[in-house]
């Protein structure tokens, strides 16, 4: 039983937790505020907090930069594409491993996870070479395939754990209730598997969106997603803090929202079930 806690204590914990929470969140908050300032206000001394002329000019400026729309499109296509391709390959595999486990299932699963731990630099040059040879360097399809491959172990793993949670008795009940295999899949299995598939998709879009090794090194312009686009701000060009902030907010906002929805899946997806 939980004990009743005195309000005084609760207020104290609340203050402490909020203080640390805001401290960790502060860089994002500051970026958010700066993105609405003019460039001059952005570097004002002393720093300006909330009371300034809020402006959207940075967002307009960023949108107008020639390569922003392209980078955004690339990010969306690469993140969504690699995730869906991964799901397509992973669903049958995870399904089979969860429902028809064999003696070697566990070994296969662990082997798949071990490929995730291969350091990227170990295969950097061959990949560049192969991409050049196939003529796909700086193309979306290359990144879709590469990001799919590096996230496939996580996709398989997450789906496997979700599928395994579907109790066998329910499938037996459906069989007793007269469902054919087809009906069993349509009416019982799929509805129970969909939430798991959805959260797997969500988490993997986030991972693919933020991937910043292959996306930086395998693209130049045409297929460059937001990771690369933002990196191009690393060489300063006059006053640019406000525009940098606006570009950053555009790159992280959608993922922050998705991330908040997938907190719980994060633990499952990134610890491979080692923490429950």
């Amino acid at each position: 039983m939980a004990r009743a806690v005195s309000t005084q204590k609760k207020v104290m914990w609340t203050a402490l937790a909020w203080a640390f929470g805001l401290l960790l969140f502060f860089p994002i908050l500051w970026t958010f505020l700066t993105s609405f300032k003019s460039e001059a206000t952005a570097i004002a001394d002393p720093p300006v907090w909330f009371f300034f002329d809020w402006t959207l000019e940075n967002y307009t400026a960023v949108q107008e930069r020639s390569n922003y729309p392209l980078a955004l499109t690339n990010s969306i296509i690469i993140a969504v594409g690699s995730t869906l391709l991964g799901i397509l390959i992973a669903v049958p595999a995870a399904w089979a491993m969860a429902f028809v486990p064999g003696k070697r299932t566990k070994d296969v699963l662990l082997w798949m996870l071990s490929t995730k731990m291969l350091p990227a630099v170990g295969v950097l040059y061959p990949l560049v070479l192969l991409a050049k040879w196939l003529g796909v360097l700086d193309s979306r399809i290359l990144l879709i395939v590469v990001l799919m491959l590096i996230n496939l172990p996580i996709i398989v793993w997450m789906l496997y754990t979700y599928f395994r949670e579907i109790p066998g008795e329910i499938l037996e009940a459906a069989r007793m209730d007269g469902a054919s295999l087809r009906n069993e899949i349509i009416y019982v299995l799929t509805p129970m598997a969909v939430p798991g598939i959805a959260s797997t998709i969500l988490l993997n879009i986030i991972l693919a969106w933020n991937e910043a090794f292959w996306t930086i090194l395998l693209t130049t312009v045409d297929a460059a997603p937001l990771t690369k686009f933002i990196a191009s701000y690393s060489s300063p060009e006059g006053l640019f803090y406000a525009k940098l902030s606006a570009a950053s907010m555009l790159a992280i906002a959608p993922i922050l929202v998705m991330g908040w929805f997938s907190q719980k899946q994060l633990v499952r997806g990134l610890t491979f079930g080692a923490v429950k």
Partner: protein
Amino acid sequence: MGRITLEKVQKKFGDVEVIPPLDLEIDDGEFVVFVGPSGCGKSTLLRLIAGLEDVSAGEIRIDGQPATDKPPAKRGLAMVFQSYALYPHMSVRKNIAFPMKMAGMDQEEQDRRIAKAAQALNLTDYLDRRPGQLSGGQRQRVAIGRAIVREPAAFLFDEPLSNLDAALRVGMRLEISELHNTLETTMIYVTHDQVEAMTMADKIVVLRAGVIEQVGSPLELYREPRNVFVAGFIGSPKMNLITGPSAGQHGAQTIGIRPEHLDVVPSGGTFTGTVGVAEHLGSDTFFHVHVDGLEEPMTVRADGEVSLHHGDTIHLEPQPDKIHRFDADGLRMA
């Protein structure tokens, strides 16, 4: 109709024979309970009948028709699982409707049957809820509702009450018995709890290690257990099983005396001992008595008014015609 016949049915998992060939006849309308300790094969036997496991050899017939190779869906049986196995993404109404939907029954008939089942099981107010919002007892009722709307040839229950708390279990036990009286359909019920078996069954099948130890009505099993295992398994508190010289006097390897067949006498008596623990239930009192020369304490069921306490000396006399005698193989002697 629900007459189920098992002929030389055998089940092996790999090289391990979990059920050696056995024969069993279940009559239409009978309430049969498979009872035995865990791992005795009772659930496996039920799943063989359901078709959820394939038999390794032998034949299963339902109403005279061979059913051995039929898939579970085609056997016309309904099953209530230990975990209830409700579909979590469907409302109670849809859960109950599912088997009828699978059978392609028309909507009107479905609604009529759902209403009838919901009323019988007190579920009318909960039809639009999800299983996750129900209590254990309500989930159990939904599982039963899903089973009865099909009007199956027989109901199969796989330890359906083991996830409920003690008070609910007694209530549900009565409800299932009443359901059997109303529907008069064959029911096969698996449990490890001999109280459930005794109170509900028309016929009890006692299993051990896949082998049928005895088949009979609850009273037959109580009065004439065929061997030491059944004698010890059926009845609560357990029968006192005594070996050694005391058994030898009756010309047996082992004798069995039920706690309720031991009289407390003022002096003399066959057994004399000291009272260990005394459990006062009000109506009855159970004494655990340490008798000289016996390793195990004996249990005695006495009237609730008998007042003896820890450490008191007690004299016991078994009722002569209620002594069960077993030979060296543990079998009952005539």
